[in-house]
């Protein structure tokens, strides 16, 4: 649990942009993992499994918050990202530019990009986590999001 806390918390921070909500989701993820620990024997990577659970929970929370509207505006409002969270997530200007470009993507697509290229999670598990069919999510990332990120980084002065 301790070994993967950082990865799970960071994933939640990137989706929710709120420390308290991210820790709440971290706790929920670890509690869920604890309750379903028998499944651990069948997973290839505990880290990947936890990140998959965390992403699903955080995206669900974000969708629920958006539905709830004003009640959860602090995490639902993606147009006004929590700068302190971004500051802590990005240690360099280049990383901050990448975080901002990822933030500009739809949350489920950005989550899929991070799960695939940051965490190395297989597409099938990503599809489950974001709740989008396998071929659809792969196409949206490979044929859309990847080029959008390159364009965004170039616009921010980061050499591709």
């Amino acid at each position, binding site marked *: *649990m*301790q070994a993967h*806390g*950082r*990865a799970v*918390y*960071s994933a939640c*921070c990137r989706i929710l942009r709120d*420390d308290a909500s*991210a*820790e709440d989701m*971290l*706790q929920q993820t*670890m*509690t869920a993992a*604890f*309750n379903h620990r028998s499944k651990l024997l069948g997973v290839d990577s505990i880290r990947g499994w936890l990140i998959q659970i965390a992403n699903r929970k955080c995206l669900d929370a974000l969708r629920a918050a958006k539905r709830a509207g004003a009640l959860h505006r602090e995490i639902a409002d993606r147009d006004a990202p929590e700068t302190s969270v971004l500051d*802590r*997530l*990005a*240690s360099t200007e*280049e*990383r901050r530019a*990448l*975080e901002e470009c990822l933030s500009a993507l739809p949350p489920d697509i950005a989550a899929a*990009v*991070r799960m*695939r*290229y*940051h965490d190395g999670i297989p597409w099938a598990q990503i599809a489950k986590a974001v709740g989008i069919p396998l071929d659809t999510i792969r196409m949206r990332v*490979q*044929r859309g999001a*990847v080029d959008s*990120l*390159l364009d965004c*980084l170039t616009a921010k002065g980061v050499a*591709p």
Partner: protein
Amino acid sequence: MTTSDDKWAMIERLDAGEPARSPEETQARAPYERLFERIRDLDEIAPPVGWEDRVVARWAAARRKRRLRIAVGATATVALAAVLLQLCSVPDTRLDVAVLAPPGSTRRGDASVGDLLRVQARGDQAHLELRVYLGAGLVARCPGNPACRRDASLLELDWKLADAGAYQIIMLLSSSDIPAGGGAIDRDLLDARSAGTSIEIHHLTVAP
């Protein structure tokens, strides 16, 4: 890379970890490889101190809650079963009246003089009594009559119907003493009701 299809195929191969197929592809891959490398190198931040303890506490609280829910559910199920059992159980209180004609007699109406009245009363309370009234007057009571038999919570009375008229066979049941009665039926029933006795009445007309 000349077309979008070629580019997407190249990205798919790169994603799948396949090597580049040509120097041109190597060159075309470069920005994507750098992008994926940048994403791979994204920072991770530590959760607030003490998060592990909070996870354990939350898990323990959820487990307690789950156990409490199970206990409450089990208790509710047992209570419901007990209530249903109580509701469905047939109350052990009953008054049965039968009229037995002597062999060879001709039946006229409900009953006739000379028939045998057989009454059975079953009650689940401490005090149980049977009374037979003809008109307003008491003609038999059980216990208190030689023809009365008692077997645990069952009282049985065989009474020869010697007179014609309107009979009322009454079962009295109470957890406390039943007023002795012995007067007119109205007075007796009034006293019995006042003492909290439950009363069941069977009417029988006996023809001459």
